């Protein structure tokens, strides 16, 4: 498909065509309960109400969005936190009846002029972490939900039988219908529902339907993701983007929701009714032009999407390989982006929301499935994105086609590629050490590189296989660590150090060993180790731009706040710094991309009509960020101990890793720890590793000290009531909880710095209980 300008109706994917008996499927639907709503108008980015559905009590109601709620929580993830705070208990777990699945939009969500403006933010109490997990995702659901009339949808309770939730913005109706005959796996289910719920049998009509679904894998694991669809009028398939992290799909299926369908009557360039559409068009066009002129020299997103990172990470020794033991590999060039470019379909506007000219959502069309229930069929594979390719290298899979196969099945089974890939990489390492073996793995030969075993594992999870290993493996690294230790199959420290999880969530795909700031970027986070809070490796390790603890702490304050802001507004982060103005390097602070920050100030102003500054953007985030941390504390997981990270993310766990970077580590010991080269030569590798281990653990604790102080938390990582008040977050229940928890820490002697400070080393503050004076 190279010639371009093909009329939309003439595009052909060569995918396998399905024929289903739609009449029969529809007839099997029974309306369980329903609700009518007055169609509303979006005003300056807000629908000004949210939708509450309780599947247990069969209640549906609207909740008003107040001006105060907008001022304090902005929207998106902020609204999600507020709704959860009002609904759950500290003891709520992922499968509790009162746990909620929340999908939110944000005031800028649904804008078509500015690239990256179609994100939904999804929140729930995660099965992996027992705290709130937020995950952002593209696709049409968020914009459509808002245009249908709601800033957020909140689903509590559980249905008795599989249901489809329809939010019909055309007719002003919410219907909860049983859906026994539809497929469960995403690629087929979405095709069925998109066709069934479209008002007319046309592609334009199908494009006005968007579906949230998961799959069989989500039913049987903690890795369930949500797939958000966006119908492609050229390929004529509902494509999908994933809210991957934290098991949101697992919660969806636990609630017996097969899918959520949202449809709208019309989408226009001003569906958000912005205060100043002219400014939106101007700044949007400016960015489109930057992308047009510069993307091919910068990230090349339009050609290969985020997969362009594979070669960069390999080059800088950051591409996770064989469970993060290494950062590059001789075979890595086999999975560089040009290898995927060969398979990608070209000449299609690949944005996951209208108007995103970054167009990073690449696909392979007509891919022939090699294993499992869909073997032999031709399908569209969405991706792979960088993270998914990184899972390939982490499992030592160096064949693009098998990475595509892994990608396809994870998506359709509703499995998060990141958690799945990172976890299997850990199981593979345990297999290599003999801690796991074929017998212990229910007959799977899970050695590095065995793609067939990987796919077999996925199929068995999706089938609900009852093998002891399959059952525990599908719950992720944390549960497998506990299982291995309980079975006494291996050294406890080795198991804990190798398994790349923190707070129970699997790491995403970057090697952080040599960047302390990035270790903080993964560990000192709200939901767990995901790179969406901060990505500081280049700034820290390559450019050495943040050498001191104070510098690093400032970066670990600013960037998480800045990146949180995208989630409050329903935006994608990529158009901020994955395209940069031509003169960015000459600005005062290139890492912040000042011109684009100003775009966002102008953007929010043009939407809401409110006067704001760039400092206000950070304040908006700080409110919600601290609120979420406070909720973590409330749920029992917001302390220093919970910001623990495995040593594999800090340094070499095994001798092999030390040897692979011997020069680097020897030099590090000389320069940072102050042991002379002569003395190093006399030391054996175990002694050197021990030195490095102790030093780096201490560095991480010192980093946590500096970061907690900068963020205005206690030395044990608890946001203080004083800080919350400063931010204008005055919920008295929350303030009391925080004070009580701080008092408890005080009694237990936990309000102390975690690092071991030698004479002359600077403490973040010489005043114990510094926060009391604020």
């Amino acid at each position, binding site marked *: 498909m190279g*010639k*371009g*300008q093909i*009329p*939309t*109706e*003439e595009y052909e994917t060569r995918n396998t065509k399905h024929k289903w008996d739609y009449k029969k499927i529809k007839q099997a639907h029974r309306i369980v309960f329903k609700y009518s709503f007055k169609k509303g108008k979006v005003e300056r980015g807000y629908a000004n109400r949210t939708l509450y559905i309780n599947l247990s009590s069969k209640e549906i109601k609207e909740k008003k969005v107040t001006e105060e709620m907008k001022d304090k929580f902005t929207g998106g993830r902020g609204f999600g936190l507020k709704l959860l705070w009002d609904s759950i208990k500290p003891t709520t777990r992922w499968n509790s009846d009162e746990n909620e699945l929340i999908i939110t939009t944000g005031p800028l969500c649904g804008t*078509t*002029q500015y690239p990256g403006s179609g994100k939904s933010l999804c929140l729930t109490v995660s099965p992996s972490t027992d705290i709130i997990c937020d995950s952002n995702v593209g696709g049409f659901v968020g914009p459509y939900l808002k245009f249908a009339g709601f800033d957020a949808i909140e689903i509590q309770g559980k249905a008795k039988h599989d249901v489809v939730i329809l939010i019909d913005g055309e007719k002003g109706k919410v219907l909860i219908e049983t859906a026994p005959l539809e497929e469960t796996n995403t690629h087929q289910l979405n095709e069925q529902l998109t066709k069934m719920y479209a008002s007319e049998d046309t*592609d*334009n009509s199908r*494009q006005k339907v968007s579906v949230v679904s998961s799959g069989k894998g989500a039913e049987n694991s903690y890795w369930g993701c949500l797939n958000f669809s966006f119908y492609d*009028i*050229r390929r004529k398939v509902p494509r999908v983007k994933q809210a991957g992290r934290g098991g949101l799909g697992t919660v969806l299926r636990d609630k017996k929701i097969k899918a959520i369908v949202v449809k709208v009557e019309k*989408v*226009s*360039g*001003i569906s958000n009714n912005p205060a100043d*559409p*002219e400014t939106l*068009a101007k700044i*949007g*066009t*400016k*960015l*489109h*032009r930057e*992308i*047009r002129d510069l*993307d*091919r*020299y910068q990230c*090349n997103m*339009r*050609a*290969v999407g985020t997969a362009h990172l594979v070669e960069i990470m390999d080059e800088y020794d950051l591409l996770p390989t064989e469970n993060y033991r290494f950062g590059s590999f001789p075979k890595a060039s086999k999975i560089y*982006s*040009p290898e995927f*470019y060969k398979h990608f379909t*070209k*000449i*299609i*506007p690949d*944005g996951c929301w*209208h*108007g995103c*000219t970054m167009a990073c959502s690449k696909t392979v069309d007509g891919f022939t499935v090699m294993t499992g229930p869909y073997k032999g069929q031709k399908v569209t594979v969405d991706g792979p994105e960088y993270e998914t390719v990184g899972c390939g290298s982490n499992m030592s899979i160096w064949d693009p086609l098998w990475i595509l196969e892994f990608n396809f099945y994870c998506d359709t089974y509703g499995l998060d590629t990141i958690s799945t890939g990172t976890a299997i990489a850990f199981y593979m390492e345990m297999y290599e050490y003999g801690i796991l073996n074929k017998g212990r793995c229910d007959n799977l030969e899970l050695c590095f590189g065995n793609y067939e075993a990987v796919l077999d594992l996925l199929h068995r999870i999706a089938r609900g296989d009852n093998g002891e290993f399959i059952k525990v493996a599908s719950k992720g690294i944390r549960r497998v660590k506990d299982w291995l230790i309980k079975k006494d199959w291996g050294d406890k420290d080795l198991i804990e150090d190798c398994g790349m999880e923190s707070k129970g969530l699997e790491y995403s795909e970057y090697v952080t060993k040599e960047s302390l700031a990035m270790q903080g970027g993964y560990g000192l986070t709200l939901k767990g180790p995901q790179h969406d809070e901060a990505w500081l490796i280049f700034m820290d390790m390559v450019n050495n731009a943040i050498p001191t603890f104070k510098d690093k702490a400032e970066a670990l304050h600013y960037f998480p706040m800045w990146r949180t802001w995208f989630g409050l507004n329903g935006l994608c982060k990529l158009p901020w710094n994955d395209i940069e103005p031509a003169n960015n390097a000459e600005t005062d602070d290139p890492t912040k991309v000042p011109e684009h920050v100003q775009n966002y100030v102008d953007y929010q102003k043009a939407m809401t009509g409110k006067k704001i500054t760039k400092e206000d953007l950070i304040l908006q985030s700080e409110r919600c960020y601290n609120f979420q941390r406070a909720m973590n504390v409330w749920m029992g997981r917001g302390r220093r101990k919970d910001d623990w990270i495995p040593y594999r993310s800090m340094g070499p766990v095994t001798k092999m890793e030390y040897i692979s970077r011997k020069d680097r580590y020897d030099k590090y010991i000389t320069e940072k720890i102050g042991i002379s080269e002569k003395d190093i030569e006399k030391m054996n590798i175990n002694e050197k590793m021990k030195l490095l281990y102790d030093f780096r653990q201490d560095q991480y604790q010192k980093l946590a000290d500096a970061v907690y102080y900068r963020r205005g938390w206690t030395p044990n990582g608890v946001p203080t009531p004083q800080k919350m008040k400063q931010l204008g977050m005055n919920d008295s229940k929350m303030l009391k909880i925080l004070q009580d928890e701080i008092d408890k820490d005080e009694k237990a002697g936990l309000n102390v710095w975690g690092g071991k400070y030698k004479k002359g080393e600077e403490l973040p503050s010489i005043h114990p209980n510094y926060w009391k004076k604020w």
Partner: protein
Amino acid sequence: MVNPKTVKILKFHPEKCDGQLGCEKACSNVHFKSDEGGEKSAIRIIKDGNSYKMHVCDHRGLCIDMCPVGALKRKKNGIVWLDKNTCIGCQACVGFCPIGAMRKSDERIEPFKCISCGACVRACPNGALELVEIEIDKIKEIVYHNLGVK
């Protein structure tokens, strides 16, 4: 569907232009029922030293592949047409047009462009504008970046 082979595009004879911009006014009348010309005209005549330049869409159609909702199509007569009822106002075509000929007026969110209607040709008293037929294959362009330009 029959794919058109040729398209009529505007040709400018600067030596005949008197700079009175009757063409722009006629154009804005077509698009916005306004005699303002200027920002509301798809054709622009720009002073260039002692002479004039024309700035208008040449129907190479690069924008067609940019449209996420299929609002940009090549019509039977070969022209690149924006259906403003389908358009969702994203400005991708405006931003990506290599010559800036897809235009946006503050009047509405959807862009507009030359449709080779000939209103400007008829409006010019001096015959400075003309519609000429050319083969689409000779001007056609596609937008896709071929893995950078390194």
